[in-house]
C-alpha cells in the first residue's frame, strides 16, 4: 500500500502545476476582461472574408 504515497505525491504535483497555471493566469490579467476575447474571436473570420 505504500505505493499510495508515490501516487498521491504524483497527483499532488500535477494538481499543483495547474494551481500555478491558474495563479499565473490571474496575475497576468486574463480574467480582467472576460468580455472582449469572446468578440475578438469572430473578427478574424470576417477579416479573412474580405
Amino acid at each position, binding site marked *: 500500500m505504500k505505493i499510495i*504515497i508515490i501516487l498521491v505525491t504524483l497527483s499532488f504535483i500535477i494538481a499543483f502545476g495547474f494551481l500555478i497555471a*491558474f*495563479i499565473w493566469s490571474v496575475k497576468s*490579467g486574463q480574467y*480582467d476582461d472576460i468580455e*472582449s476575447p469572446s468578440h*475578438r474571436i469572430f473578427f478574424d473570420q470576417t477579416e479573412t472574408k*474580405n
Partner: protein
Amino acid sequence: MTSISQQNKCLHCGSDSGEAILGINNEIFCCAGCRSVYEILNQNKLCAYYTLNTSPGIKMDEVASKSYYAFLERQEIANKLIAFKDHEVTHVNFYIPQIHCSSCLWLLEKLPQLHKGIVNSRVHYFNKEVQIVFNHKLITLKMVAEILASIGYRPEINLDSIASAQNEFVNSSLGLKIGISGFCFGNIMMMSFADYLSIGTLEPVIYHFFRFLSVSLSLPVLFYCASDFFQSAWNGLKIGVLKIDLPISLAIIITFARSMYEIANQNGLGYLDSMSGIVFFMLVSRWIQSKTYQKIFYNKDYRSFFPAYVTRINDRREEVIDLIESKTNDLILVRSNEVIPVDGILSKGKAYIDYSFVNGESQPVEVKIGDQVFAGGRQVGSSIEVVLTHEFSSSKLISLWNNSIFRTSKGVQYDKYDYLASVFTIVVLSLGLLSGLYWYFQDDTQKMWSSIITVLIVACPCALLLTKNFTQGNISKILSINGFFIKNSDVLMMFNRINTIVFDKTGTLTLPHENTIQYEGIELPEFIKEEIASVIKQSSHPLSMAVYKSFGSIKPFEVVHFKEHIGLGIEAWVNDKHVKIGSSSFVKSNSNISNGSELLVEYDGKYIGKFVCYSNYRKNAGKVMSELSKKYKLGVLSGDNESEKPQVRNIMGESAFIKFNQDPINKLEAIKELQNHGSVVMMVGDGLNDAGAFKQSDLSVSVTDKRVSFTPACDSVIHGDRLIKLASIIKFIIDAHHTIYIIFALSILYNMIGLFFALQGILSPLIAAILMPLSSITIIGLSYLWCQKLAMKNELISTQ
C-alpha cells in the same frame, strides 16, 4: 435633397433619417456627422464595422468642436492620463463610455489603420476603456483624442476620471483566494476521505504523510484565503459591531484548532477539509455577490458632470485652465454642447441653454447678451462667451451639495439577515457551552469536548449566509437582464418597506430630447406649409429646428429680408408674403394661453395658428402607473411649468399628487414632508435636479436612456425602456426576498437536526463535517430554482 421614405434608417447610427443625406454610393445617413464617420472608415477600408452589427455607430448629433481637446496639449494634464512613456512611445488609457458592441471593439482595435502614429490599441470592454500606444514623434495626445472623437468615440475626461484611481486588485485577489482555497479544499478532502473510510487502519507511514500534507495545505487557507474574514470581524469588534464575519472566523479558527489537537494526538486527520470548505464556499458566495455590482458607478456627483478644464480667453488668446483655477470675472468660452461650468453673464454669441438636467425644464432657454447663465446648463447652439460671476464652488447648482443632507450619509442600514444569523450563532454557541458544562458535571470529558466542537461546527452560520448571498446574487442577475441595476444588496431590502413612489417628469415620464410637434390652427395648403418651413429653416433656435424637422423633407423656397429678434422670434419675406414666427409677445394671436414651448405663426399679416411642442411620454406609462397605484401612493415632482398638467394627470391617475415648478431644494423638501407623514418614499428620476430628492428618499432609482449617461448618486439604475416593467420588477424583488426566509427556515431545520444529535454528544464530528457541504449545496440549488420560478411568474425572463 432627395425625398426618402420615413422607414429608412441611418446606416451609421440606425436612427430614423427624417431628412436623409445620401453618401457616395447612395447610402442613407441621418446627418452629415454620421456620413463623415462613414467616409473616414470607407477611406481606410474599415467598413467591416458595419457588417459586424447593424448600425453600430454613435449618432453624431453632438458635433465636437475642433478645439475641444485643446487642454490635452498642456503637459501637466497630459501627464495625468499617460500611463507610461519612453523616448519613442506613449501608453495612454481613455475612458470611452460609448463602447457597447463588438463593432466598437473591432474598430477601436483597428486605430493603427487610421493613423500610422498609433502603434497599437486594445479595448478593455468591461471597463469601457481603450489602451492606446502611440509614437509621440508622429502624433500628439490631442490628435489621438481627436481621431477617436472624429469616429464617434469621444474620450471622456472630467474631474472624476482624473481623480479616480483604479481598483482592480481587489477582484483579482478574490479570484486567487477562491482558486487556492478550492485547490486546498479538494486535496485535503481526498486525504480525509481515505482517513474517514478506514478509521484507525491507515498504515502509520501513509498516515504521517497525509497528516503532513493536510496541515501544510490548510495553512495557506487559514492565513491567506480566510484573511478577509478575520480582518472584517476584527474591524467590526473594534467599533463594537457584531459582524457576520465574526462567527465565520470563530468557526474557522475553532475547527482548525480542534483539528490540530486531534492531529497532535494522532487521532485521525481532523476536520481541515470542513475548514477549507467553509472558506471556499464563503469566498464563492462573496464573489457571486460582488459580480453583479461592478458595472455601474453609483456614487457620481456633480463633479462627473462638469468638464475638468475650461477655455479662458485672455487677451484674445485661448488658454486651457483647470476648472478649479477659474476665477470671478474670467472670460470663458463655452462651445456647442458643452456644459456651463460656473454661473456667469453671457457676453457674446447666441445662447440657447438646455437646463433640463438642472431644473427639469424641457425646452432650451434663449438668453440675451448681458443676462445670467447658470452652471449646469448645456449650450445647444454655437459657441458663446461667458463672464464668470462666481467661483466654481459657490455656483447656485453646486450649493445644492452644500445642503446639510449631502453631508450626512444615510447611515449604515442594518442588515437584518446578518443580524438574524448573528443571533442564531450566539444562541447556538451558548447551547454548545451549556451542553459542555452538562457533560462536564456528568464527568464525561470525551462527550464534553465532542459536543462542544460539533455544536460549533454545525452552528457555523455559513448556510444562512449562503442563502442570503446566493439568493441576492440571483435576484440581481435577473434584474440586470431586465435593465435594472442595484448598488448593493441592502437596496433590495428597502423595496419591502416602500409605500410611496414619486416620479420626476422630464426625462423620467417623458423621453428626453424627443418632442412631438403639433400644429393647431387653420388648415394650410401644402405650399403655405412649405413657405413657413422655408422661413423656420433659417432660425437656429432649437424649437424652430424641431418644428422644421417635423415637416419632413420639403423643397425650400428662397427667403429674403430674414430678420431675427433675439428672445422674440423671426420674420422674413417668402414668395412676396410676409411671415412672422415667434412667441406670443412677438406675434399677436387670439389664443391667450402661452408657455415657452410654442411657436405662433403670422402669415401675410394674419395670425393663422401655432406649433405646439409636446413632450413624448413613454409608451405604456399610464398602464404601469395604474398597476402601481393599486399598491402605492404615486406622485410627480417636476421642475417644468404647468403646461402639460393634463397629460401628466392622465398618466398618473386621479389619486396621484402632482407638483410643478419645483427646484431641487423644493423636491428635497417635498420628499421630507412625505416622510414626516409616515411615507417611505421611492424616488424615480434623472438629472441633477433630482439629486437632492434622491438623497432624501429612502430608495432612489435613476432612469438612464442613452447607452451611457450621467446618473447622480443613487441606489439603483433602470434603463428608460424598462420603466414599463417597474411594477413587475418591484413585485419580483419582494417575492424573491420572501424566499430567503423560507430557505433560512430550511437551513435552520438542518442545523436543528444536527444540533439535536450534537448536544447529546452522539454526532461524530465526521457526520457534522459531511452535513455542512451537503446543506450548502441544497441551499444553492434551491435558491437558484426559486428565483427562476419567480422571475418567470413575473414575466421577467422567458419561460424556455
